[in-house]
């Protein structure tokens, strides 16, 4: 009986949650973005200075990052701050709901912070203005230099509460930074926060580097490098900077990706003109051959349960996408549409495969169900490829190149993102030209 009561109580909790007034329907696009007011965080007057940090404006700066995050989703419409009707500290205690409703806000974010004894203490509240109540609140303490991450973590909590889905703001993107003329490109590994801040270069550009990919469980990266003119797959620890060749292959290895548990790397190995798919266990160093076919088999990507691998093969003549069990059995072609298909990437939710499609001189980024049905092309362009999923499976980041003139002038490579609904296409800010993006999992998980 007691257990039944507990279950009923839990159910009650869930029911009240799902009936909250301002849940956002994110199955559609940004047809009607939710108006949200993000009040600057109040900076406690007892705050002390900290190593070159502008403590006075920290509240404004954190709120600006939250605002930018929300605007970038296309699902929210952050309101202009000059229309705000209450001081941050007072609103944080108790908003005058009817006044905030007057400026057409449906949700309100308030907060305050204190920098003291080398620590940053932050709390925030999310208010449902229509229902006139608090939806969620959180307080935490960290080092002040972490303030940008604080803004991203707050953004993730609010996003989660309003959409019912995990956020993706406290994440990073690793990519290939490009510079120089088109026929003498210099390429370096680079990493930045999801919003373009904190760019760091991880290689010097002495050798060609391609296709970095995050381990979904930690901050390790696998990529391809032409170090000493031997194109091989490498493993890189971002924190320590140590790197090593993956396996001992007598030829080119390329197109690496991690298994969902992060313990294996799946990649292509090219020998005598034939590329097949192999895995290597990073713990045992055991190498397994997964495909054995005279065609090109490449761009492998694990399903999130680790049971299947999607890949790209030209065994039927031109590039198409195939799915097999992760031991290589049960190979099935899944794309039959007009055009050729490459770079399948399994969604972290497991239900979709993102891909690049080429048809009649145009390149498309699209998604389809894992059996190849329900194809939806999200964006068409002169050249674009290599989609990578946000950790919540909601947004794709990819790169796009422009057409070059007769001397290679006018050529650019940039990162773009698009919602899987096909809405909200936007360019990601990068310091240099950029390609081959890969999105990390949530840092705080």
């Amino acid at each position, binding site marked *: 009986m007691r257990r039944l009561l507990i279950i009923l109580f839990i159910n009650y909790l869930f029911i009240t949650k799902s009936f909250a007034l301002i849940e956002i329907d994110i199955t559609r696009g940004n047809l009607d973005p939710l108006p949200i007011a993000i009040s600057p965080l109040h900076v406690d007057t007892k705050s002390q200075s900290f190593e070159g940090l502008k403590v006075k404006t920290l509240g404004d700066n954190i709120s600006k990052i939250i605002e930018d995050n929300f605007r970038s989703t296309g699902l929210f419409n952050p309101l202009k701050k000059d229309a705000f009707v209450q001081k941050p500290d007072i609103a944080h205690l108790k908003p005058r709901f009817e006044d905030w409703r007057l400026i057409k806000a449906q949700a309100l974010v308030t907060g305050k912070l204190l920098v003291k004894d080398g620590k940053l203490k932050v709390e925030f509240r999310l208010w449902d203005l229509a229902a006139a109540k608090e939806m969620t609140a959180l307080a935490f303490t960290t080092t002040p230099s972490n303030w940008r991450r604080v803004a991203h973590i707050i953004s993730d909590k609010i996003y989660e509460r309003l959409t019912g889905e995990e956020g993706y703001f406290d994440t990073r993107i690793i990519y290939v930074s490009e510079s120089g*003329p088109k026929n003498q490109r210099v390429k370096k590994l680079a990493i930045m926060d999801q919003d373009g801040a904190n760019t760091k270069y991880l290689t010097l550009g002495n050798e060609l580097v391609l296709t970095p990919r995050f381990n979904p469980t930690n901050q390790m990266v696998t990529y391809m490098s032409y170090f000493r003119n031997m194109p091989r797959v490498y493993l890189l620890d971002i924190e320590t900077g140590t790197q090593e060749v993956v396996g001992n292959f007598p030829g080119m290895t390329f197109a690496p990706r991690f298994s969902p548990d992060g313990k294996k790397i799946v990649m292509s190995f090219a020998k005598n003109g034939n590329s097949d798919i192999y895995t290597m266990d990073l713990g045992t160093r055991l190498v397994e051959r997964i495909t054995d076919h005279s065609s*090109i088999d490449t761009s492998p990507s694990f399903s999130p349960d680790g049971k299947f691998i999607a890949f790209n093969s030209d065994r039927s003549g031109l590039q198409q996408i195939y799915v097999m069990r992760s031991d290589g059995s049960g190979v099935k072609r899944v794309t039959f549409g007009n055009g050729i298909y*490459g770079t399948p990437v399994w969604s972290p939710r497991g239900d979709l495969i993102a891909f690049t499609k080429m048809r009649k001189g145009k390149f498309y980024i699209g998604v389809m169900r894992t059996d190849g049905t329900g194809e939806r092309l999200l964006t068409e362009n002169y*050249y674009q490829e290599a989609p990578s999923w946000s950790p919540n499976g909601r947004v794709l980041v990819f790169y796009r190149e422009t057409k070059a*003139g007769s001397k290679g002038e006018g050529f650019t490579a940039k990162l773009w993102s698009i919602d899987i609904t096909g809405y909200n296409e936007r360019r990601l800010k990068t310091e240099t030209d950029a390609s081959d993006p890969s999105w990390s999992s949530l840092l705080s998980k």
Partner: protein
Amino acid sequence: MIFNKSLKNILLVIFATLILSACSTAKKSGNIDGDVYTGKETVEYLASGVPDRIFFATNKSSLTTASRATLRKQATYLRKNKNLNVTIEGHADERGTREYNLALGERRANAARDYLMTYGISGKRLSVISYGKEKPVNPASTPLAWSQNRRSVTVKVN
């Protein structure tokens, strides 16, 4: 009547000239057969009369008649220079996904290597590397540039 006849002749000559000039301009501006590059603009030479590169059709690694002739010249040259080793670099054009192009470049370089081996060159002297679409020789975004970039290049190592 006579005037008419000569006019007709003149017209015929003009017409024929137009056709011929149309033909010659097509050949000149093209330098592409099917979509395989047949020109010499980007070609360098291992030695006099020994071109360093061959060209491929889109998504293909099969050797054309002209490519085979070039490779036979390279084989003869390599037989004469027994201490010379080479690397065969395989390349693709920019109109494909990066990873597939790496595999395609490798396949093209090996097609050239296999052919050289059938003409008696030891595989030990012939290493292979693929650059995919990473090193275009012509940076333009035109069918001509792409045809020049779909290539395998034999490069002396020593």
